[in-house]
């Protein structure tokens, strides 16, 4: 019986068009992800870790397909009115339900299992980097299928199956699948899953609840493998332990319970619709209305309203949709709260409308597309499903009216969803006492999220009109959405290829919405959407016919009556497409990613030899920068004074001007000029070679628009001014893209023991004389002392002059600023900020003053008369230091809410960090080579910790170091090349920031702050303004102030990758007769050294480590009872304390003085 049923189910399912569509979807998903080289460059596409990620990602889509299969399995009796026949057969409850469930599950598993087949085939693609293909092992694919995909499918199918059996309603089943996504999104929001674009660095390590919440197991998978190295990713099957095992077990158990519920409450009875109201018997009519014919006068608008109202009303009355809206509201609250209140370094932000709107954008798109996919299919086929079609079709209503009504109804549901998201935002704002709502920003969501979704709704309407039925249509719409959103993967990158695409512009409170082609593209896609609705209108009365007949009718229409509308369509398409193309490619510079990379590669190929060319030195920069904010344009003119510091005469001088520059002029006296306009490269061959110590000058002028905003202009000299010689910054950094273009190693040199000469452009110290003008209502800022300001011709002028020589790195700012000032000794400290962003100004001033004091005392005098802090719109960085001027971004500094003392104080530490760069970077200027960043970023990190400790206490430092430890361990796991040592660090933030902070904090403990600072001061004094320092010089200074044993450790931390693990195994408390307590703790310690390849081995440990006792209140200074510094050796160590107080926690290395791989087991409850 059971096998018969199973065979029938299998045959039934596999003959559905939706099954074929689902199989194609999963196959392509697997194929495309591997063929396009998904994942980090050094992780094999055949590695267990990557295969697991791809398959778990594919299983996200199984919710859609499972909804269709379950509907096919359970609702087909209801949909096709077979219930009465099937339910009266003698088939038992168990075989019936089990057969149907098995059928849905088996089809789901089969379809998903095509993903690995697509993946395996893709590994044979010639386009794929061969070095990323390793040997294929069956276990690599079977293990994640078994542990990740299967439990997910079992749960998803069980949940949907239970809903479908209990309600016999497709809509309710869809809502159940939306519920699954909401769980996933909430889990991802709480754990910062890397699959979410809004993933925030450093807020990881959140609780187990979040990891359990995600029914796909992705969040726990990422948590589990967060610290995995490349070697582990390439070789280890993801083990079923910890949170992942718990997650998989939990959801499988839930599936079993759900099946039980379905089985117990199912009976072969027709589900009677719950009568909400009793039958109404109205009194007979008071007056007899005689029937009289009424001549029809059809009006499309009236019909449209009536139909649209009917559709929207039906959706709003349905419990499933109400439930969906409620779920969305909760998700929106979770997303907003987690985005605002667990930001980078565990900080919180003010509940500014702009931040909420940015947060809502992505989940809105996801939920909106889900509505298009599910509710689009449900709404479109309503007349067919309830067999009202013949009645409606016989009325004179136009197909266009109905098609428009259907589309409008979906659009209205999307609008309602957006409105609810906005309501969630307002609730979060109000409950946090933030009442500066910005309605126009909220409303922009209807435009930037609502419009693309409405376009997708039009596509869905057309796809359904051409699909054999509801479920096949649903699968096709899903396929369409996935395909159009991933076209760049197959090289169709231009927005005119991608339906509904249009980049949402950045928003800044300073300049409003940034420049965008969104409107032009939306206009173009609206023409398509109108045509799509037209297709649906035409086929509306033919939905009962075969697809081939419908296509036939369409082609006949196009050949006859349709000529005119089709012609109009093409004309409109041409006009709007032309306009969109003009806006994208003509008004703006359009460059596909690959062409931009090719340009950079060509530059490197042509001009890399110039890197070795001797260059003159810039000694003075005189410039006039005229900013025209309203026109978003700036004119830059200037003169570089050039001196030959080389030993030999200079034959020629090469400069590169910015890519976007126009009206360029550049001259060197008495020279022949050669220009390569493609790269903006000018070569001046001097008529008379420039002898050593002699000077010449470069004069230049050009017009730029990049970086000029209506309010909030930022022009960096590194991008907006000519530079001398070869521009190494043009080189491609992504190793995969370099390999693709056979570029070999980049030109950044490695540190060696030999003292090599650094590139001259970084050595230069210049004097600056800048005259900056801007519109009458704005203030312009650059480095230097403000000598004079005046107004002329309705514009404001500012004359800045350097009061001491500076590194040649400047910025020119212009905005409507408010300014706050303070004094730090004889230094004028000022903050220029957007007037609405005043909240953190005082805290910033306090931190800046404190840092100036600390650094002045410890490392030497601050060289300028002023320090200027200024707000800029960009959020690419939190802070950016330039000589005597520091930029801070609005969202990552001015909107940070630092009021909660229990959170790491991002404002204080970020200001301290950037002010510290006035020493570490602008006075101590290391060679550009491996390890250089340890002298700038790591030392700024160290200074930041010292200032933070003084201003906010040790607990804040401990908190911050915990985050740095996590960032270091997670960063090395994501490393795409080799992890370098701190002494040889390249462009690896996790090393120079996070490991640097941990190492210098540990050295401070090892040597003491005075000794360390003395060494740093010596380093600075010896290398000030020479740009010769390397990490070896730093190590030398440290050696001078330490004992050989101390230095051995320091050297190891700099020159090697060492990782520790301390674990408190047991802690016993025994009361002593004298009322005191004896605490005996066992600590297991290991120390391992990792090679750059990630291969590790044990090394013996013999170091003094703190073990401390804390009260129940927590691991912080207020609850500290006692600390002992003990020599710990590899293996188990026993430590004994005798205390007056009974402790609650025993903690090994509480102050994070070592890099500990697993901090969670450093704490043990005593008892």
């Amino acid at each position, binding site marked *: 019986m059971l096998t018969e049923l199973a065979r029938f189910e299998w045959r039934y399912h596999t003959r559905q068009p939706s099954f074929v569509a689902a199989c194609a979807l999963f196959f392509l998903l697997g194929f495309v992800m591997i063929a396009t080289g998904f994942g980090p460059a050094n992780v094999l596409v055949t590695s267990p870790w990557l295969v697991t990620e791809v398959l778990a990602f594919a299983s996200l889509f199984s919710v859609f397909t499972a909804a269709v299969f379950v509907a096919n399995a359970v609702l087909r009796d209801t949909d096709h009115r077979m219930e009465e026949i099937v339910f009266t057969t003698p088939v038992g409850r168990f075989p019936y339900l089990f057969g149907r469930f098995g059928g849905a599950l088996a089809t789901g598993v089969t379809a998903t299992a095509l993903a690995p087949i697509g993946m395996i085939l893709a590994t044979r693609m010639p386009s794929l980097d061969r070095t990323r293909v390793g040997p294929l092992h069956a276990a690599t694919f079977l293990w994640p299928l078994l542990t990740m995909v299967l439990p997910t499918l079992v749960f998803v199918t069980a949940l949907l199956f239970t809903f479908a059996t209990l309600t016999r309603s497709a809509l309710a089943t869809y809502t159940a699948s939306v519920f699954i996504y909401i769980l996933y999104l909430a889990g991802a929001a709480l754990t910062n899953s890397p699959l979410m674009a809004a993933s925030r660095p450093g807020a990881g390590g959140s609780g187990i609840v979040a990891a359990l919440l995600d029914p796909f197991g992705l969040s726990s998978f990422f948590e589990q493998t967060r610290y995995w190295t490349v070697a582990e990713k390439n070789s280890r099957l993801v083990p079923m332990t910890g949170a992942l095992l718990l997650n998989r077990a939990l959801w499988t158990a839930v599936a079993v319970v759900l099946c039980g519920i379905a089985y117990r409450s199912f009976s072969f009875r027709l589900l009677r619709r719950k*009568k909400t109201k009793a039958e109404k018997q109205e009194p007979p009519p008071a007056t007899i209305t005689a029937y009289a014919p*009424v001549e*029809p006068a059809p009006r499309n608008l009236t*019909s449209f309203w009536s139909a649209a109202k009917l559709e929207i009303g039906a959706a709003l009355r349905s419990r499933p949709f109400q439930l969906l809206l409620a779920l969305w509201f909760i998700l929106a609250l979770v997303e907003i709260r987690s985005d605002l209140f667990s930001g980078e370094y565990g900080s919180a932000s003010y509940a500014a409308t702009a931040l909420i709107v940015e947060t809502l954008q992505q989940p809105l798109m996801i939920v909106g597309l889900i509505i298009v996919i599910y509710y689009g299919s449900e709404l479109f086929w309503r007349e067919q499903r*309830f067999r009202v079609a*013949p*009645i409606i079709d*016989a009325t004179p209503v136009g197909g266009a009216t109905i098609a428009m009504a259907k589309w409008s109804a979906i659009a209205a549901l999307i609008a309602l969803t957006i409105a609810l998201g906005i309501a969630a935002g307002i609730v979060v704002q109000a409950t946090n006492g933030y009442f500066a709502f910005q309605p126009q920003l909220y409303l922009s969501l209807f435009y930037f999220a609502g419009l693309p979704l409405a376009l997708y709704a039009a596509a869905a309407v057309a796809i359904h009109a051409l699909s054999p039925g509801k479920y096949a249509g649903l699968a096709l719409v899903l396929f369409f959405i996935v395909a159009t959103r991933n076209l760049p993967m197959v090289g169709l990158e231009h927005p005119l290829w991608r339906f509904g695409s249009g980049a949402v512009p950045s928003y800044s409170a300073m300049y409003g919405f940034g420049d965008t082609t969104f409107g032009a593209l939306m206009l173009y896609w609206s023409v398509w959407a109108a045509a799509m609705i037209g297709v649906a209108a035409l086929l509306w009365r033919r939905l009962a016919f075969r697809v081939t*007949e419908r296509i036939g009718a369409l082609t006949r229409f196009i050949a006859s009556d349709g000529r005119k509308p089709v012609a109009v369509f093409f004309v409109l398409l041409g006009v709007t497409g032309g306009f969109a193309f003009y806006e994208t490619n003509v008004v703006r510079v359009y460059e596909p990613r690959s062409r931009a990379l090719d340009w950079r590669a060509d530059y490197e190929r042509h001009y890399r030899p110039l890197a070795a060319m001797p260059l003159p030195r810039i000694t003075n920069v005189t410039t006039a920068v005229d900013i025209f904010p309203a026109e978003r344009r700036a004119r830059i003119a200037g003169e570089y004074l050039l001196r030959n510091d080389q030993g030999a005469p200079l034959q020629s001088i090469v400069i590169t001007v910015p890519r976007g520059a126009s009206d360029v002029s550049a001259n060197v006296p008495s020279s022949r000029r050669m220009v390569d306009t493609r790269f903006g490269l000018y070569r001046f061959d001097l008529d008379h070679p420039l002898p050593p110590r002699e000077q010449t000058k470069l004069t230049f002028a050009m017009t730029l628009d990049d970086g000029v905003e209506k309010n909030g202009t930022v022009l960096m000299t590194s991008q907006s001014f000519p530079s001398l010689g070869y521009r190494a910054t043009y080189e491609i950094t992504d190793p995969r893209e370099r390999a693709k273009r056979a570029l070999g190693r980049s030109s950044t040199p490695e540190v060696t023991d030999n003292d090599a000469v650094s590139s001259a452009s970084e050595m230069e110290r210049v004097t600056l004389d800048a005259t900056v003008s801007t519109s009458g209502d704005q203030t312009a800022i650059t480095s230097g002392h403000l000598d004079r300001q005046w107004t002329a011709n309705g514009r404001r002028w500012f004359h800045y002059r350097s009061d001491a020589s500076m590194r040649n790195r400047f910025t020119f700012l212009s905005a409507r600023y408010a300014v706050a000032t303070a004094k730090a000794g004889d230094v004028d400290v000022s903050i220029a900020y957007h007037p609405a962003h005043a909240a953190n100004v005082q805290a910033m001033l306090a931190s800046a003053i404190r840092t100036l004091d600390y650094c002045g005392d410890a490392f030497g005098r601050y060289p300028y008369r002023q320090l200027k802090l200024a707000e800029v719109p960009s959020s690419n960085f939190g802070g950016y230091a330039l000589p005597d001027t520091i930029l801070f971004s609005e969202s990552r500094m001015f909107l940070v809410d630092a009021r909660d003392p229990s959170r790491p104080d991002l404002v204080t530490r970020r200001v301290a960090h950037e002010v510290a760069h006035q020493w570490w970077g602008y006075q101590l200027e290391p060679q550009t080579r491996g390890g250089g960043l340890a002298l700038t970023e790591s030392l700024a990190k160290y200074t930041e910790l010292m200032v933070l400790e003084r201003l906010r206490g040790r607990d804040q430092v401990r908190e911050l170091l915990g985050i740095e430890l996590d960032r270091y361990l997670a960063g090395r796991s994501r490393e795409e090349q080799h992890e370098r040592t701190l002494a040889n660090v390249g462009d690896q933030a996790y090393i120079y920031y996070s490991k640097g902070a941990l190492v210098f904090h540990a050295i401070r403990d090892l040597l003491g702050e005075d000794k360390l600072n003395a060494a740093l001061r010596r380093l600075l004094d010896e290398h000030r303004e020479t740009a010769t320092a390397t990490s070896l010089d730093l190590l030398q200074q440290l050696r001078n102030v330490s004992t050989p044993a101390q230095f051995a450790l320091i050297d190891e931390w700099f020159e090697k990758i060492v990782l520790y693990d301390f674990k408190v195994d047991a802690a016993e408390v025994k009361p002593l007769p004298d009322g005191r307590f004896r605490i005996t703790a066992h600590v297991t310690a290991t120390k391992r050294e990792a090679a750059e390849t990630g291969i590790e081995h044990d090394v013996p440990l013999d170091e003094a480590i703190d073990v401390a006792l804390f009260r129940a209140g927590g691991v912080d200074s207020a609850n500290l009872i006692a600390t002992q510094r003990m020599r710990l050796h590899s293996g188990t160590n026993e430590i004994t304390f005798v205390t007056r107080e009974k402790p609650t926690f025993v903690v090994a290395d509480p102050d994070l003085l070592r890099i500990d791989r697993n901090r969670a087991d450093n704490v043990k409850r005593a008892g």
Partner: protein
Amino acid sequence: MLSISGLEKTYANGVRALQGVSLEIRPGLFGLLGPNGAGKSTLMRTIAALQEPDAGSIHLDGIDVLAQPDELRRRLGYLPQDFGVYPGISAVALLDHIAVLKGITDKHERTEQVAAVLQLANLYEKRKNAVSTYSGGMKQRFGIAQALLGAPRLIIVDEPTAGLDPEERNRFHNLLSEIGEGAVVVLSTHIVEDVSDLCPTMAILAAGRVVLEGSPAQLIERLGGRLWRKTVPKSAVDEYRRRMAVISTRLFAGRTQLHVIADDRPDAGFEPISPDLEDVYFSALAC
């Protein structure tokens, strides 16, 4: 006046549903009789402009239905053979919606007419209940009520009484006879009594062709004096079928009654009977 001429329709699976159907139908009730599968629904759906024929033409009061389907739809009332309704929507709301779609855009007129058809269909007291909760007969009456909205010149009712109990059917017949004035009402059915009770003119459709056309009285008249009946054992039926024109057999108290057409009494056991419409129907199908 509805004129149909030379309608042909062959489905993709090879079934020839209509083979040169031509009919002239005057205002009043017109019965279209035929067994299941004769092509009645195809014909009804074609007249209602829900599908297109391969060949032929349909004209209603001078309107070319195939060329101007929207003109027909403004004058059409259609009760499909098998229809459903949106769940949870009351009769009055649904009628209002259909009235809008039919083009009754004046709110006052619409309310009036919806009230009128509800009263006509005897549904007024239940108008606020969801149509999906109606019984079969009520649902059919709702179907006719919606067909009457507007000013239909052509009303098509496709198999309206199938599945109704005698009382419901009776009520439905009364409703139909009330509206059968002025407009062309085409009643498609396989139940002979529907036609004999209601229709002054009729046609019989079999295998996609019109096999008989006229008024029921005329057609019955034509069989007058040529119809014979005999009760025989079941086992002898085949023998009789071979020998004479048996148009129908019917079980009566366990034995079989034969109806035979012949100019003279076929044999001694036969008795002459007066024909009814059913005999006309069966004689037409038997040819």
